[in-house]
């Protein structure tokens, strides 16, 4: 199954993501902050996509993607956040993120977005 990481300090949001991507096509791995996320990404080279919040304790999402960029890790990342500040969006884009989705999100929109980056037939 295709493995997707969700990095968000909100259990509610992680649950919403699990619900939106339910159906047996994906294995969802979860982390609660950027430090956990960073470690999980570094130790799981079969991740096909990361969905990442911005505002989180210890290490925020933008710090995490900046660190991944510095490390040369190219796993696709979609920011999933309540933030819409253009400066933050720009930072994410410059750090190599693939997109930015605002919360609350429509489940079908998230599912479509994931399909865009984890296409059918790209099973690991």
């Amino acid at each position: 199954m295709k493995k997707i990481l969700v990095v968000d300090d909100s259990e509610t949001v992680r649950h919403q993501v699990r619900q939106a991507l339910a159906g047996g096509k994906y294995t969802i791995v979860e982390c609660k902050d950027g430090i956990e996320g960073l470690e999980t990404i570094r130790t799981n080279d079969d991740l096909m996509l990361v969905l990442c919040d911005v505002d989180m304790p210890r290490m925020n999402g933008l710090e995490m993607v900046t660190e991944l960029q510095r490390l040369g890790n190219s796993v696709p990342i979609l920011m999933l956040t309540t933030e819409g500040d253009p400066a933050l969006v720009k930072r994410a884009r410059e750090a190599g993120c693939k997109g930015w989705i605002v919360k609350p999100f429509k489940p079908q929109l998230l599912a479509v977005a994931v399909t865009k980056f984890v296409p059918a037939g790209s099973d690991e």
Partner: protein
Amino acid sequence: MLLRDRVPGSPLGVDDPDPAGGDNDLREKQIAARIQASILPGQVDIEGLEIAAGMLPTEMVGGDYYDIIPVKDGCWIAIGDVAGHGLAAGLIMLMIQSTLHGLVKLSPDAHPRELVSALNSVLFENVRRRMKRREHVTFCLVRYWPDGRIVFAGAHEDILISRARGEVEALTPTGTWLGAIEDVSKFTIDKAAQLQPGDVMLLYTDGVIEARNASGVEFGYETLKRVFKELSQSNPTAIRNGIVDAVRAWTPNIDDDLTLVAIRCQGVYWPETDTDEGQ
């Protein structure tokens, strides 16, 4: 008069409403209303967008038109208003819809100004030369891409954008009425803007801002902006319905079609090779 008698200057018998307001007039209105309702898009899912659109038609059939046409990367969004009522307005709307869809199918990556100019050529030929009528159309065409870019052209009401950080911006399309002159290409200019995640774009027809209360005062552009700003944290359906409710509260008798297209930018996606500003 509908297909009843061919009067000079009105080859299809599409004439002004029966001044006596008789059965023919009523039939024309019913047919026009059916044309108007039947060509509007149903539910359309576009990547990254949450859309709520709708039209509140009047008995007169005011000639409003809107459309959302999906293409491979994003969509085309159109809104227009035929200056006229009844069957002729309905027929012109149908021409706009058919021509636009054909143009988009043929050239999904065209510039909006190109499609607007081509659409005008068809309308001018049909409305002025063949139907020998004088209707014209206010019309705006928007091209949206999944990275949040929009490019738009035409002559219509401002596009309002409620930014996620709170303010409402107005984008004024540049162009001229369709169907009035043979070539609008010199007057039709593409303009661009960037939607950010969480922004809400609102397109509307003049029936919204020109709705008059019992004292004859119009609902107005500033009131629309204020109501839109107050509603902008809601989802598009609530925004659309909230504005309609505000107009209805303002005026007991809505006497022109009222069309609203509320679009929330739910997400943006950046192409692999494009890392420039674009914001």
